[in-house]
């Protein structure tokens, strides 16, 4: 019986990779799997305690534990009442693009997703637009926001106070937020890409 070697099938594989049908099928698989990966990433973002707490607005409780159970991140950061700081991130995270290249028997899948820097750029602190609150969650966040509401009645978050006495020491505790979520997201995408190497 004749033995078929890799060398024998290589020309066929090379030609197969060049066919439109192959590319279409790869795209179909990648799009389907990428949609699942993206949905899973967005779900993990929306289910994160920090996201949930901020989404709850000025009346939420400190479920993230970042403030020792007191107050809430929405007021601590100093958002305006009615703000939805999560929405721009959610919209950003839904974006991705897929490109497929086939050359000489190799198929390369290129998936572009937003970066952490993109996320930081669209999550400005309400009182210092060059700073990102999303990054601040991980590296430490100033409690200035809660003190900067001019008076309780006109408070941006509905619960601020004007400072007249000594300011209490900061009690914010850092925790992982977007970085670990992004790492997991990227790892999943890499696994998907590796399937076509």
């Amino acid at each position, binding site marked *: 019986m004749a033995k078929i070697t890799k060398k024998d099938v290589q020309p066929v594989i090379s030609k197969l990779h060049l066919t439109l049908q192959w590319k279409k099928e790869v795209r179909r698989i990648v799009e389907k799997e990428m949609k699942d990966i993206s949905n899973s990433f967005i779900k993990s973002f929306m289910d994160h305690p920090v996201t949930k707490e901020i989404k709850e607005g000025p009346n939420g409780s400190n479920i993230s534990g970042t403030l020792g159970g007191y107050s809430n991140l929405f007021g601590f950061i100093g958002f305006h009442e009615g703000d939805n700081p999560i929405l721009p991130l959610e919209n950003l995270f839904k974006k991705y693009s897929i490109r497929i290249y086939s050359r000489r028997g190799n198929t390369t899948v290129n998936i572009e997703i937003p970066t952490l820097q993109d996320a930081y750029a669209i999550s400005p602190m309400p009182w210092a*637009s*060059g*700073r990102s609150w999303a990054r601040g969650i991980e*590296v430490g966040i*100033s409690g*200035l926001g809660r*003190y900067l509401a001019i008076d309780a009645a006109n408070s941006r978050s509905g619960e601020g106070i004007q*400072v007249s006495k000594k*300011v209490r020491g*900061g009690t914010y505790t850092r925790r992982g937020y977007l970085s670990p979520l992004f790492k997991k997201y990227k790892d999943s995408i890499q696994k998907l890409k590796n399937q076509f190497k």
Partner: protein
Amino acid sequence: MKPTFQHQLLSSFYLWFDSYLMRKGEAYETFTTNFYYYADERITDKVVFGSPYKQFVVDESVDGAVVLEAVSGDGTAISKGTSGMMVDYENGRLLFDSGFPTGTNLSGRYSVKNFNTYISNQNEEQLILEGKYETNSRYTRELTYIKPYDQVTPAAFLSVEGVNNVPFALGGEDDSVINAKAVVFAENLYELDGILSVFADSNHTCFANIPFTGAPLNEYGDVKSDHYPSGYNYTGLANNYHNDTYMIDNTTVSKFSDRARRVLEPSLYVGFIDFEIHKYRFPRST
């Protein structure tokens, strides 16, 4: 306790920040003023003459800046060492041995930093909301001495927020990721934009890991003559440690919004400079 990594880091960061701002931003002004006698209860064995400004430029690597080494006393030149003269660069004043005539007319030419630089352990809330700073304006100064010791604005307050050692290579090498920041108080928007611009461009800059003993000033605020017999020169000092550096991987600058500024003294403009600094090191080695 011996000086540890964080001691050395903060000290090195301070020296770099101070010098970089003056070299890249030419952030200094040169004045010729009188010095005014006053009594300082903390230094009773010295005769003190203060200038209207504090934090004189001491770094000779700053092009064009005048580092005060001598003054004129009743028309005669008085150099460092004469009558025990020392220059307190930190507090902007001259110290003489007791017995020096307090009625001497002293004047001198010197450069002053546009921004005083301080190491701070206070958080932003305390710095911005509690801080009551005397303004040491570079533009409209009453011609009398400025009180020593208190922190004055315009100023930059430096602090290290935290260090995170991330495994980097086999053999115990870590990437120490340091989050440092400067809270800046400026007199006007031009000044604030200037300092923010200088440090926004410091991204991907390296600075030397200078030993703790490299701090240029002694307890009187004068240059340590035994360490720096020919004067303190930051770039010269840093070149001695060019194989041991920190790298600034990310810098973000931002301004305190006008709306938020309402809670401040209206004359102050506040900005923030956040640095992410990396250093590859072996934290567990002896």
